[in-house]
Each structure stands twice: as C-alpha cells, then as structure tokens.
C-alpha cells in the first residue's frame, strides 16, 4: 500500500507488521511519536502487544531485556540522553545475546542542550556489542526494522540491533512509503522462538557471573557472532529483496564509486542530498562518488576496501566527534584502508552537528576541494588536504 508517512510512523508500522509482542519505552524527542503510534495501535486493538510503562530509559531497556529472555519479540526506541541513560543495560542485552530491536532517532547530546540530529548518541555506543544500521529514507527505516528482527535472531548472530534514523530529517519528514502487506511480512519473518528462554519447566540461568576462566570465551563468542553478522546482514537483505523487491546494498551502499577519483563517505539521510550533488558533478564531467555506510557495527572492512581502494581522495563527513582526536568515522575509514598497498588520501570533515543543515552547496564544496587535491596529485605538485568543521 502506497502511504505517506514520516520516519517515525514508518518504524511504528514495521513494529506492528513484525508482530512485536512487548514494547517498553520512555518518551524523548524526536523518538516519542514512534511509541505514541505503537500505543495507539495497541489501544485500538490493531496490534496485540503488551506496552509496559516505565519510569526511565534505563528501566525501559531493562524491561525489554527481561521480556526478551522469555522468548518474546521486543521493541523499544530512544534518542540522545535517553540512549546515554541506557548505556549500562546496552551491555547486559548484548552480552546476554538478546536479539531485541531498538530504533534510535538520532539527536545530539547535551550540553548545550539540543533536540536536533547528529550521530553522537549512537556512535558513542559503538563498543556496546550492538549492531548499528543507519538508514537514508523512511522506507528504509521500515524495511530495516523488519530486517533487524531477522538479523538479530539469527542463531549464529544473536545480537541486538539499533536502527538509526536521523532525528527530524527522517523522524519528522513525511514521504511516500510502500507499506508491505501482513502476509508477505509473515512469510519473511516467522515468529521468534528461541532455543533457550526463561521457562519454569526447562530451567536455565541467564546473565550468570563468570570468573576469569569463562569470561574471555563469552566475549570471544560475541566477537565471532558480530563478525558473522556481516554475512548475515547481506543474506537477510537478499532474502528481503526476494520477498519485497527492495534492497539497500547490505553493509555499504556505493553510488558511482567504481571510477570515482573522489568518494564522499556518509551515514544516514545526508546520503540523499549527496546523491543529488554527485549527479550534478557527474553531469559536469567530474569523477565523484558517494559511499553510504549502512552498517557501522559490524564494520564492513572488506566492502569498504573494495569500494574505496580505487579513489584518489576519500572525504569522510562525520556528524559526531571523538573529542581530542577527530570524527569517529574518519578514524575508522583510515584504519580500514591502512593495509592496502596503494591507498587513497583520507580526510575528515565534521558537519551537521546539532541539526545544522547540510546543504548541497556545502557537499559540492567538499568535492571541489578534494578534486583540486587529486589534480595536484596527478600533476605531481603535491597538495595538503585539510578537512574542516562546519561552524
């Protein structure tokens, strides 16, 4: 069905279509309308689920964790400070290998207080053992939530998934969304029935204490599962494509990268604006391309190397910062390319913090700056490329 939904409504539609059984959440802008919509579905009887009202985000995730180990399909959503407040529980959920799905409507962190989009909230949770998928459109938000349940519950993965959508730019922007029918979703996504769950007739212990003898093996298994997730994310997307005739590239979404002298790397909705700029510059004969990173964790090193190794310059646009160093994505891209014999020059740009608009002109400016460096390289004159901070 062709609908006109914003990103938050698209997420709520997916949660309903996935036949989610338990939802616990605490309101925070710009996430709130996701769980408000779900509460409406439950109230009007169109969705059969328990909605647990809680006193905080920490409690929300704790409730979801408890519900998920009983073998139910669970959802929550948050943003910014709310995600920060969940930090302790994030590790419990991933360490206990609970496959729950959480939407993060990305928002900058206070102080100074802001309600607008950047990626600092989710990027700061990089090392919590959660899969992080960043989406570009409301349609992709819906589709990725459906995929996320399947990825998370894959027996060789068993890891929670954050579906990250830019606050306001996606969460509060309406556009055309094709809402799949329930029958097709049911065929794609069977009910969640884990091998182990809390059951008084079959008692198991969850979240045990371990000594130095056992702890490293648990962490090793978690790491192996996250690495395995790279393959599973692609596999689930192929399966999704077969059912719904839509796909997003799996781990990375390259656009005109194959012969590009300059490639811009972004996460999230900025990719849409960047596609317009790439098309415009291509019409002018400039060899530019775009790489949208869809999976931030697991980090698709192999795919990134394949897509970026031919470029002269890679510009990374971060909507986050590791204070005292640089944009987090810039560091990661550099590390991913380090082992290549012939590697592109990688430079970080910081922009879109706290909802600052990223305009076409700015993205074109980044491309032109990098193209100039490529020209100097070709002429052998040498050039130093410095990224900049959008202030």
């Amino acid at each position, binding site marked *: 069905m062709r609908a006109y939904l914003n990103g938050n409504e698209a997420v709520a539609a997916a949660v309903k279509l996935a036949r989610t059984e338990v939802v616990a959440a605490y309101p925070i802008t710009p996430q709130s309308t996701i769980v408000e919509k779900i509460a409406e579905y439950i109230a009007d009887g169109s969705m059969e689920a328990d909605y647990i009202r809680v006193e905080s985000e920490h409690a929300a995730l704790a409730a979801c964790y408890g519900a998920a180990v009983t073998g139910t399909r669970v959802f929550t959503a948050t943003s910014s400070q709310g995600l920060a407040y969940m930090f302790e529980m994030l590790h419990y959920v991933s360490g206990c290998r609970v496959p729950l799905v959480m939407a993060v409507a990305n928002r900058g962190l206070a102080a100074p207080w802001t309600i*607008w989009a950047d990626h600092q909230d989710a990027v700061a949770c990089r090392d919590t053992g959660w899969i992080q998928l960043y989406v570009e459109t409301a349609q992709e938000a819906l589709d990725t939530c459906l995929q996320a349940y399947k990825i998370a519950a894959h027996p060789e993965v068993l890891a929670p998934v954050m579906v990250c959508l830019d606050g306001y730019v996606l969460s*509060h922007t309406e556009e*055309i969304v094709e809402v799949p029918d329930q029958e097709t979703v049911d065929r794609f996504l069977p009910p969640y029935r884990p091998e182990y769950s809390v059951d008084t007739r079959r008692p198991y212990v969850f979240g045990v204490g371990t000594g130095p003898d056992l702890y490293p093996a648990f962490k090793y298994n978690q790491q192996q599962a996250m690495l395995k997730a790279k393959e599973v994310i692609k596999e689930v997307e192929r399966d999704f494509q077969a059912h719904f005739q839509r796909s997003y590239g799996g781990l990375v979404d390259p656009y005109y990268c194959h012969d590009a002298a300059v490639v811009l790397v972004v996460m999230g909705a900025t990719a849409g604006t960047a596609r317009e700029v790439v098309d415009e510059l291509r019409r002018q004969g400039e060899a530019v391309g775009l790489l949208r990173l869809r999976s931030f964790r697991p980090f698709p090193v192999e795919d990134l190397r394949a897509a970026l190794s031919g470029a002269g310059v890679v510009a990374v646009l971060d909507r986050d910062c590791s204070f005292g160093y640089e944009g987090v994505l810039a560091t990661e891209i550099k590390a991913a390319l380090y082992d290549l014999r012939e590697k592109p020059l990688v430079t970080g740009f910081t922009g879109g913090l706290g909802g600052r*608009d990223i305009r076409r002109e700015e993205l074109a400016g980044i491309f032109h700056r990098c193209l100039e460096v490529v020209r100097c390289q070709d002429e052998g004159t040498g050039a130093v490329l410095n990224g900049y901070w959008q202030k």
Partner: protein
Amino acid sequence: MLQIRWHGRGGQGAVTAARIFGLAAAVYGGWYAQSFPSFGTERRGAPVTAFTRLDDRPIRDRSQIYSPDYVVVLDATLLESTDIFTGLKPGGIVLINTGREPVMARSPETRVYILDATRLALEVLDTPIVNTAMVAALAGTTGILSLEAVEKAIAAVLSRDLATRNIALARRAYDLAKVLGSKEAIACDG
C-alpha cells in the same frame, strides 16, 4: 521541483497543511512529495513554518527549503513580524489569508493573491481554522492538484466528522481560488 513554504502560528495547523498537501500530491495526485515542519519545538501562537516539496521523480534532497516557489500565509498578522518573501523565487506565488489587501513591499515579479479564508472557515466550520481552506486554495490558484486529491487527503488525515466539514470548506476555497488564479494578481494592481 516545486517547493512550498507554509507560514502560520502554533495551533493553526500549518504543519498539517504541509502534510495534507504532500499527501494529496503523493498518494492522490501522481507526484512525489516530501513534507516537514520547521524542526524543533512549537509553541501555541508563536510563528511556525512548514514545508512541502513536490517533484515528478523521487525526492532525495534532505536539506531545508531556502527558495520556495510558493508561500502560503495562514495568518496575516505574521506580515508584521516575518519577511514572508524571504528566498521566494522570481515569478513565485504568495497566497495570504486576509480580508483586506495588505500593505507590504513586494517585488513586481511576485504574484500575490489574497483570500478571506477566516470568513469562509467561520461560515463552514464555525471556527477560524483555515489550514484545509488554504491547502485547497493553493491547489486551486496554481492548478497543480485537483480538488478530488485534496478532498481525499483531508479524509485520510482528519477524523470523519472533521473531515466532512473541512471538505465542504475546501470546496468553497478551491472554487474561489480557481477564479483567483485566472485573475491578475494584486501585485500587478499597484
């Protein structure tokens, strides 16, 4: 691509107007559309802007709208505090809800139309909420959407009773605007 900026005050339904117009275009009008509020917190009575983009191909640009083709003003008192012409494209259309010709500086390239939507809304709804009337008026003045598409979008967004009365209002506004669109704009008068 066509870009529309909606001006209103918190509580007047400018954000809903942007959405209804986008829905009418995207689902019932054969366009691709995108709509969004001026991001942030909204307070009752404070100036609010909202935006709609239309195109005949999928809309990928996620940046804000700086140079609209059309500007719609739900509340003429905003003219005292807001430059509603900011960024308006040459040849752009401005549609203002007012009962009398506003005094304002305007470029000769801008076409300004006025419509007393408040009076219409009071007659039909018994309350001065003009967002659906202004959606229909923009559709009628520009001819970019049919009345049928607007009616369907209103029916999809509002509850049944509200929708019925707002559709009646939209019809009145659309018919008036059709005539308006075929006339010389007021900017050409003086």
